[in-house]
């Protein structure tokens, strides 16, 4: 198993922490993981993105150029990474903010209005967790339990009250996939 993921969006949408949670959870499950942020000036006003590799083996290249999965949270990220998704790969789109749709027939495309659903849940900042829940339901890369466990370690104790809403968002995202939204 080798999953090479790119997560991209505006700074502040939680794309970096999403990637860190996947890496952390993978580590807890004994997998080889790496997390590499884009740290260039493009972060200001453009897209921020991170590359996460999860593997049964120790990770070779931490750099991902042709992702097996791309999760895009805004338009510039869609434009940049949609063409790069590997043949037979997966593209998850936050359709609340992304206007276009993918014309590609060789990849699996999942459109989720994550920002709208997050607002319905009462916290627009968990849109990332809805997308993460959907991704994990589809790929079973790491368990939701491991993600929750990671949240406990990544969040400082005064923010632990946020774990519940994050958990709800993960479950909501997973449920959307289970009922077959496309």
């Amino acid at each position: 198993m080798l999953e090479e993921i790119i997560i991209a969006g505006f700074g502040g949408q939680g794309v970096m922490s999403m990637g860190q949670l996947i890496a952390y959870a993978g580590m807890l499950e004994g997998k080889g993981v790496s997390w590499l942020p884009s740290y260039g000036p493009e972060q200001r006003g453009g897209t921020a993105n991170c590359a996460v590799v999860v593997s049964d083996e120790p990770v070779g290249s931490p750099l991902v150029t042709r992702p097996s999965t791309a999760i895009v949270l805004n338009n510039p990220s869609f434009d940049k990474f949609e063409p790069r998704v590997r043949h037979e790969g997966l593209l998850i789109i936050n359709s609340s903010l992304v206007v276009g749709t993918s014309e590609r027939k060789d990849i699996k495309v999942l459109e989720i209005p994550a920002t709208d659903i997050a607002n319905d849940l009462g916290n627009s900042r968990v849109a990332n967790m809805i997308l993460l829940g959907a991704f994990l339901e589809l790929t079973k890369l790491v368990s939701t339990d491991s993600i929750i466990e990671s949240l406990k370690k990544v969040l400082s104790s005064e923010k632990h009250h946020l774990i519940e809403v994050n958990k709800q968002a993960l479950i909501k995202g997973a449920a959307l996939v289970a009922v077959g939204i496309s």
Partner: protein
Amino acid sequence: MGKVLMKGNEVIAEAAVHAGCKYFFGYPITPQSELVAYMARRLPEVGGLFLQAESEIAAINMVYGAASTGVRVMTSSSSPGFSLKQEGISYLVGSELPAVICNIVRGGPGLGNIQPAQSDYFQVTKGGGHGDYNLPVLAPASLQEIVELTQEAFDIADRYRTPVILMGDGMLGQMMEPVEFGERSETEQFKKDWATTGTRGDGGPKIITSLELDAESLERRNCNLQQKFALIKENEVRYETYSIDDAEYIMVAFGTTARITMNAINKARQEGVKVGLIRPISLWPFPEEPFIETRDQVKAYISVEMSAGQMIEDVRLAVNGHAPVDFYGRTGGVVPTQEEIYDKIMMVARGVQV
């Protein structure tokens, strides 16, 4: 302590603390600022001292002062800041002082940018400052290897009374991977009777200086240094090889570039190309042995670097005309992709553009 997920820059700092480093003098610069920030928080916890200097030049000279007293001391920077430290590094070599200097390399020349690069290879391996000198340079490829090599760097520094450079690129500094800080079973003890900590009436004054006005005395000092460099070349070569036993083509890469190259090698192997890797871990002393052992069997070497071609000169010296040496590199902060490296392998091995 189990595995933890940390950033490369933080791993360097924590590994240094584990190695007994108590003093850090530095000045922030992207992409290694997390190292400085981590030390600012961490060193007071272990009874050490962190000081943000007014400049990189001040920081390296503070390192000189602290090293003179025999303590384990470190500074770090990234390319433009590292250039500023060169005078001080030359003084450390001349005065035979142990210290660890970290360079998380970014795109140059000049102010350049903050993206990953390896274009300071010449500077670190050929003596970036003035005078006849070399100094050990270690280049980790993973965060776990940082833990091991940071400890090694401090030990080598004390063993030979020399500054040691730990070199990574911006990617290594910024990425996160699981690491484990194991306790060392055996720690080498170093007697530092040269340290200027006061004589307490138990001997003559100790002098740490690189100044020697008499030419013949300075030549003798140089001879001693050269003997020390020869000893380091004999004892401190480090490298790793990957699937070279049957290799017709051998890639040469260090640091994160080696990891990207390994992915390309695996793909080329699936296509039936017999290709392997030599990964220098010590950039100086450069590992000549794996080249001497393979150079009469392989059809070509390919050096892959995040530079316009610097390590390739050492590869050519080690191969010494026995086989062709090819090159693939990207510059200015552009990281070569595994697809590009794969294409290069196929072009050299099959003689065709893929």
